[in-house]
Every structure is written in structure tokens, then in C-alpha cells.
């Protein structure tokens, strides 16, 4: 417990230090909403990866694969393919026509207040729907890590988010997301290498292990998405849904031009895509090594699968290695939630402050 508490405190301190540093550099509206549009493609690519890989990706995809096999792999594939839609249709025009929010683009194209109002409402509805589960997850994780009661954990996370965004704006949000992406990818690389080392670096052995342990039905589609149309519905949701997520789309205002915008999409497709692909292997590894019973015992939705796998790889419950790995992965999960929530908070504040202001003054 003391290890996890230490790692959690370290992440909170680092992110607050970033906010302090960013606050000193945030002067104008353009600094606040778009980091003055001066990020490089790699910076924005890492930040996009930090923004887009939420706790649902980090914890959820692994759990779904461990419990339901192939359907979990479908959940992980969609978020990568969705970036093709963003790259081909959205990223460059968005960069060229908007300034701070999705509403900017709508207003530019439609030229009337009603459509801007619709964009503002859309942004707020989408962001609240996204924020709610992230905050619920954050509270549960902080409680698990530190023992702070759930209600106070919510207040702590919420208050620190407001501090990050209010003082640090897009610059702080961006660097929190970059730090989180680096932590997340490091954790993923360590877990991937350790998992594969147990099966002689042969990924096929992970499939064989999962099948032996759970039976042949496990590797087939339909264990989770039982109705055939659910599969297609999930696919369509991903394919067109990402392009409407305000907190991801506003990231394209942080780069200077269309060329950088498109290069940052390629960064996130390789960083995020590799990560999504890895979650499928993590799920298979967890189901063979940890087993579905232990996974369900910890959380019946499977959301603690990745921390449990890390603990197993570190040496199992009670060992020092196991505790360190469990603490590290859980802390990365918290960092993940902080990064996503700060992006959501910033884009919501843009919709309320910037778009409403435009509405009222025009």
C-alpha cells in the first residue's frame, strides 16, 4: 500500500509542477485554448495518444479480452481505424477553419447562431457523458490505491482537474497527456515483454494458452456482443464517433498548420495502435496466467485485469516485485484518467466560455 501511495503522490506532484510551469507561460486566449498553436507533430501525437487512450482502453479492453476473447479484440481495433476517418476527413479542415472549439468550425460553415448553439449543446452532452464514467473510475481507483473514501477521492480528483485546467490551460493539459502517454506506453512495453518471455516470445502460445484454459468457444466472436448487429453497431460507432469527440478534436488547434496536423495523426495511429494491439495480447496472457476466476473475483467487469496481470508478472501477490508492478500500473491508470478528464474539462470550458461568449456578443 505504501508503494502505491508513493507512486500516486509522485504523479500528482509531477502534474502539479507541470501546471505551475504552464501557468507562467499562459497569457492569451490562444495560449489557454490552443497552446498558442505551436506544438510539434510528435508532441501533439503523444498528447493525442494520452487523450484518446482513456481508462476504458487501458483497463477495459484488457479485461474484455480476458473474459470474452475475440470481442475484446474488436473493442481495441475500432479506436485505431477511427483515426482513418479523422485523418481523411476531419483533421486538416478542422485545423484550417477553426480556432479553439468544434463550434468554431460549425459557425464558420453554417454562419448562424442556432447551429453554434447546437454545437455547444452537443459538446456539453458528449463531454458530460464521457466525464461521468472517467470520474467514477478515478474515484474507485484512488480509493483502491490510497484508502481515501470514495466521496473525498472524487472531490480531490475534481479539484485538481479544475486547478490544472484553470491555471495551466492547454499547455498543462498537453504535457499531462504527454507524460501519461509515455508512462502508459512504458508500462505496456514492460508488461508485453514480460508476458511474452513466459511463452518463449511466441504470441501464438498466448492464443493456445487462452484456448486450453477457457475452451474453443473463447477465441470466437459473439461471447460478449451476442446479437450480430451489436458487432456492426460497435464498428459504426467507432468509425464515425471519434470525429465528434470535442476533447480529441480540439487537439488539432494546438499545431501550426494542416501538414503538422496530419503528421500528428500518424503519430497517434502508431503509438495508440500498438498499444491497442497489445491490450489484446495482455487479455490473452491474463486469462492464461491469472485466470478468469481471479479476474472476476477482483472486479466482475474485468477492469482490474491489467493490474492483476502486472502483479502476477512481478512475482505474484505479496512479493515486492508484484507490489511494485501493481502500484505502477494502478498509478498509470490514475494518470490516464487525469489526462483524459483534463482534456474533457478544457474542451467543455471552451464550449461554455468561448462559444457562449461568441453567441452573446455577435
Amino acid at each position, binding site marked *: 500500500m505504501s508503494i502505491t501511495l508513493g507512486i500516486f503522490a509522485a504523479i500528482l506532484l509531477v502534474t502539479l509542477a507541470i501546471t505551475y510551469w504552464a501557468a507562467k507561460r499562459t497569457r492569451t486566449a490562444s495560449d489557454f485554448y490552443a497552446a498558442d498553436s505551436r506544438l510539434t507533430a510528435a508532441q501533439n501525437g503523444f498528447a493525442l495518444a494520452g487523450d484518446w487512450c482513456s481508462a476504458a482502453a487501458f483497463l477495459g479492453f484488457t479485461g474484455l479480452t480476458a473474459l470474452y476473447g*475475440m*470481442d475484446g*479484440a*474488436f473493442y481495441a*481495433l*475500432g479506436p*485505431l*481505424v477511427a*483515426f*482513418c476517418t479523422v*485523418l*481523411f476527413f476531419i483533421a*486538416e479542415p478542422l485545423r484550417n477553419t*477553426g*480556432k479553439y472549439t468544434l463550434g*468554431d468550425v460549425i*459557425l*464558420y460553415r453554417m454562419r448562424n447562431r442556432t447551429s453554434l448553439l447546437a454545437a455547444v449543446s452537443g459538446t456539453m452532452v458528449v463531454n458530460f457523458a464521457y466525464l461521468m464514467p472517467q470520474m467514477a473510475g478515478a474515484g474507485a481507483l484512488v480509493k483502491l490505491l490510497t484508502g481515501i473514501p470514495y466521496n473525498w477521492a472524487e472531490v480531490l480528483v475534481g479539484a485538481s482537474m479544475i486547478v490544472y485546467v484553470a491555471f495551466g490551460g492547454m499547455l498543462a493539459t498537453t504535457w499531462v497527456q504527454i507524460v501519461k502517454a509515455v508512462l502508459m506506453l512504458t508500462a505496456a512495453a514492460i508488461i508485453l515483454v514480460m508476458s511474452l518471455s513466459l511463452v518463449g516470445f511466441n504470441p*501464438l502460445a498466448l*492464443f*493456445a494458452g*487462452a*484456448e486450453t484454459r477457457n475452451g*474453443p468457444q473463447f*477465441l*470466437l*466472436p*459473439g461471447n460478449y*456482443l451476442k*446479437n*450480430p*448487429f*451489436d*458487432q*456492426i453497431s*460497435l*464498428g*459504426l460507432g467507432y*468509425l464515425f464517433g471519434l470525429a465528434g469527440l470535442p476533447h480529441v478534436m480540439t487537439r488539432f488547434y494546438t499545431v501550426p498548420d494542416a*501538414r503538422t496536423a*496530419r*503528421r500528428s*495523426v*500518424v503519430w497517434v*495511429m*502508431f503509438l495508440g*495502435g500498438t498499444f*491497442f*494491439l497489445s491490450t*489484446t495480447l495482455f487479455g490473452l496472457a491474463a486469462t492464461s496466467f491469472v485466470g478468469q476466476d481471479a479476474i472476476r473475483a477482483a472486479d466482475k467487469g474485468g477492469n482490474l485485469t491489467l493490474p492483476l496481470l502486472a502483479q502476477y508478472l512481478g512475482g505474484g501477490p505479496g512479493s515486492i516485485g508484484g507490489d511494485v508492478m501493481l502500484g505502477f500500473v494502478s498509478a498509470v491508470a490514475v494518470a490516464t484518467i487525469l489526462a483524459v478528464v483534463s482534456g474533457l474539462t478544457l474542451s467543455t470550458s471552451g464550449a461554455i466560455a468561448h462559444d457562449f461568449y*461568441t453567441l452573446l456578443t455577435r
Partner: protein
Amino acid sequence: MKRSGPMASHRASDNVAIANLIAAKVRVLAPMIVIYMVGYIGVTVLAGFARDFMALKVAGSLNVGFVLIALNYVVSWVLALVYVRVANTIFDPMVEQAVGVAKGDGGRR
């Protein structure tokens, strides 16, 4: 936000450089869009309605379904790289040319 007048939109259609740019974009993007959409939605349709096919074993426990999923990753990555290459080498110079023509017309930007 900055309103740059009517963006010379009524003139844009007369601008041959812009028409060429749009034609080039459609020519390159249309097949790419068809590939990734059919590839991805196709595999979800198979997962829903052709579960026996998805279950066919390819190597050891690895089945067709997982191979198609992996293939979708590769297709997305390859298309992204192709798009960026085409955009940098073909679209960008055409954009510059179109902007130049618009400026020559006394247009704005």
C-alpha cells in the same frame, strides 16, 4: 473568430487550380476510404454473421477472425502513411498553386 469575407467562394469554382486539387483528392481518397471502411465494417459483419468462417484455424489456435483483425491494423497504418506521403508530395504543392492563382486574381488569403 476571424471572418475572412466570403472566402472568395463564388470565385473558387472558377479557379482551375482548386478544381484540379479537388479532383486529385477524390481520385486518391475514394479508393482509400472504400478500403478501410469495407475492410473494417466487413470484419464486423463477418463476426456477426459468419462465425464459423471466423473460427477456421490458421496456425495453432489462431483463427481467421484474429488474422482479419490484425490485417485491419496493418491496413490502417499503411493507408495513413500513404495518405501523408501523397498529401505532402501532391496535395500541398497543388494547394500552394491554388492559393497563388487566387492571389493573382486579386483574391484574398
